[in-house]
């Protein structure tokens, strides 16, 4: 009995040892991680494409830098990311590198408080560009647009806080097979009237065959983008009229103030013509689209129930990977002066910009490994890093020298034309946008019309515009007040750098203050 027990004990011991050995060799993590530095890279680009592109760059970077491990954090955007970002930054638990956008509501203070400027590094060549066409070129100048948006959105004029990873624009994605079925061939619309005719043919085809097919996949999100694109052409003349300063660019505050002063109305003919174009476009969507989101529109398109899907090139990779048919991206052409419906209000060809880089990444001031984080950023935005990113994501690269894959080459084929910036009259402010959405049913559908919509907007907008102009004023003052300690801070330091930074801060503060005083006066005088 005792021998049996001894044997059983030995067998148990051997079994346990063998099990432990198997576990250690096949399953367990090393007790000490091989890489001594881990950096975290957080963004909200969870569409198909960018995570793969970033992973491809990380893989190569880790091969080149064996001591560094890079972790990609994909945080859903819109509602979750801003809160997640704010709480982590406040608690000093934020990742080393983070995406941020100037349009995120209520987040304007973030860069100044939590991110480190990259200006000095951007003035030096990117070491990962050695042996490429961008070798010896200052890092900043290797970007396609020399970092326009990070310069424009900087809380400190003269300082650059971010580098961009990609470039994007809006495109009309066409189901090629469905178009051949309906039109007999692929027709690329050369102006808005061509698109109008295509929509009519789709409607006719749907009626004849009894199949539910719409010209444009519908949703609230994509409607915003469509409206902002098509409304612009008849508004070019109005924009010119409102440009008192002669900057050939309108900021939202100028459009808001001009409305308060009674210098334009939704019911004036040119604006109504723009609304008419929005109505024509949204009438090509399925009923009830305003209750749907971007993903619903994408599903409608992928099921072959809509000929076109209109949105950003950031969705191109998702569409390509998910669609069972060939997709051709096309430009959404604006109405021209010869347009039969609204041509008399169009003063020229509207433009869609010259390609601005985006997906801005910032370095957290409290990063535990700022040198390594910055180094990874340099790799990701080098020619080899961007090549890996663009090849794996099919998103445009942000830097010169990276070869744009054939499949997305026409994303860079921008429509040249007149542009007055980003004031499409529906999104000039939060309240204005809400009023627009709330009344949109008056524009689209059988019972809707541009006249009804314009009349409803003009009845409700004065209060909304006032609220939004007040919000603009508050946002400007948010920039003005903290500059006083900054200016005094620089004045307390010695050296040329401190003097120059003080002068720049003083100039920027005075400019913002002047704008704030103008807005205050505009609000008071429009009482």
């Amino acid at each position, binding site marked *: 009995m005792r021998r049996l027990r001894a044997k059983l004990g030995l067998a148990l011991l051997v079994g346990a040892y063998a099990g432990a050995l198997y576990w250690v060799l096949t399953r367990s993590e090393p007790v000490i991680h091989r890489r001594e530095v881990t950096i975290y890279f957080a963004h909200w680009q969870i569409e198909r494409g960018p995570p793969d592109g970033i992973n491809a760059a990380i893989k190569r970077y880790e091969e080149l830098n064996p001591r560094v491990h890079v972790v990609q954090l994909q945080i859903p955007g819109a509602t979750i990311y801003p809160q997640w970002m704010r709480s982590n930054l406040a608690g000093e638990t934020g990742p080393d590198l983070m995406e941020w956008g100037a349009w995120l509501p209520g987040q304007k203070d973030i860069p100044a*408080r939590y991110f480190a400027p990259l200006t000095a590094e951007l003035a030096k060549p990117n070491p990962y560009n050695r042996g490429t066409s961008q070798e010896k070129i200052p890092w900043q100048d290797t970007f396609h647009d020399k970092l326009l948006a990070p310069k424009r959105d900087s809380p400190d004029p003269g300082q650059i806080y971010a580098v961009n990873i990609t470039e994007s624009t809006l495109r009309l994605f066409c189901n090629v097979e469905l178009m051949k079925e309906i039109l007999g061939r692929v027709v690329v619309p050369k102006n808005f009237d061509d698109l109008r005719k295509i929509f009519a043919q789709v409607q006719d085809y749907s009626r004849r065959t009894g199949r539910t097919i719409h010209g444009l996949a519908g949703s609230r999100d994509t409607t915003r983008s469509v409206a902002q694109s098509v409304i612009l052409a008849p508004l070019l003349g109005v924009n010119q009229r409102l440009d008192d300063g002669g*900057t050939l*660019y309108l900021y939202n505050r100028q459009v808001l103030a001009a409305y308060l002063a009674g210098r334009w109305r939704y019911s004036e003919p040119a604006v109504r013509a723009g609304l008419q174009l929005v109505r024509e476009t949204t009438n090509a969507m399925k009923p009830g689209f305003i209750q749907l989101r971007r993903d619903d529109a994408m599903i409608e398109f992928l099921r072959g129930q809509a000929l076109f899907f209109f949105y950003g090139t950031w969705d191109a990779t998702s569409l390509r990977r998910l669609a069972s048919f060939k997709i051709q991206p096309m430009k959404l052409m604006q109405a021209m002066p010869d347009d039969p419906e609204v041509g008399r209000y169009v003063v020229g060809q509207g433009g869609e910009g010259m390609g601005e880089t985006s997906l801005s990444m910032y370095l957290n001031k409290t990063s535990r490994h700022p040198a390594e984080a910055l180094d990874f950023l340099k790799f990701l935005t080098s020619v080899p890093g961007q090549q890996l990113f663009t090849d794996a994501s099919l998103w445009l690269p942000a830097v010169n020298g990276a070869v744009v894959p054939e499949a997305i080459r026409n994303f860079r084929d921008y429509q*040249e034309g007149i*542009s007055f910036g980003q004031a499409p009259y529906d999104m000039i402010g939060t309240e204005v946008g809400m009023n627009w959405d709330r009344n949109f049913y008056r524009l689209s559908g059988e019972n809707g019309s541009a006249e009804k919509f314009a009349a409803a907007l003009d009845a409700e907008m004065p209060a909304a515009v006032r609220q939004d102009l007040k919000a603009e004023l508050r946002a400007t003052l948010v920039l003005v*007040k903290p500059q006083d300690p900054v200016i*005094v801070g620089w004045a307390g330091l010695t050296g040329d750098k401190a003097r120059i930074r003080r*002068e720049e801060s003083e*100039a*920027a503060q005075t400019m913002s203050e002047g704008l704030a005083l103008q807005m205050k006066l505009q609000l008071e005088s429009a009482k």
Partner: protein
Amino acid sequence: MFAPYPEWRRGCGAWLCLTLLPFARAAAPVSDDTAAAWQLMADHLVRDAYVRLDQVKGPPSREQDFAQAVVAVDYQPVTQARLHEAEATFAALAAGHDELAEAAAYMQARLYQVHFQQLDYPRAAALYRALAERHPESHWAQLGLVKLGLLLLYALPEPSVPAERIGAATALLARIHEEKLQRDLHLQIARAGTFYDQPLDSVLAHLIEVNRIGGLVGQAPEDLAVELGELSLRAGHYAQARGYFEAYLRDFVPNLRSVTVRRRLEDLAALEAKAKGLRP
């Protein structure tokens, strides 16, 4: 006393060093901590600056008092009580005769211009004027004149007529000797000119001066370059407009406005031809 006992002497020396070291360290950071606080403030880190200043032992210097009051201006959440405490500090420091007094006087005026819940523009203007009278060459007085210019342009009850507002602000330019600050006021006068729909030639004169002094950063240089071209065109100075538009296309990365500027150059050619009685 310890001469017969060399090992005691060495021991006492070491003991003295160790004992005095904390005092030496405590004495040194006064200026170091204030300098660090200036740097933190310059980096938008006022909370950290506050913590840093709070750690300084011993009676605070005038510089520390000033730094602490400046920090309070943007220490979140900003309270009116804290701002009033800061004002009392600024007012006390402003009575002195050093650069700190000038900076404190400037900050006191800033409280009335932008920080207090109830702004008092006439009081801010009076403080700027007093500072400029007392220390006309001080940087803070010069900067105060720029801010006074803003108040004259938009906020003070008198003068109330736009042309007179612009005239009053323009008169300040002669008292500002720092070129960069002159530039800032020129720019504000020009912007007020378009805001109040003043004659374009008077606006252009200020913008041209801003361009001559240069040194603007951010989006401002690009806006300025286009403004110079467009307002010159509107004022009928076609050659001048062409020069500025061409400079814009040469000096700035192609962007949203480039095509609009090229289109304006085409309009310009047509206007020039018309002026010469030719067909475009």
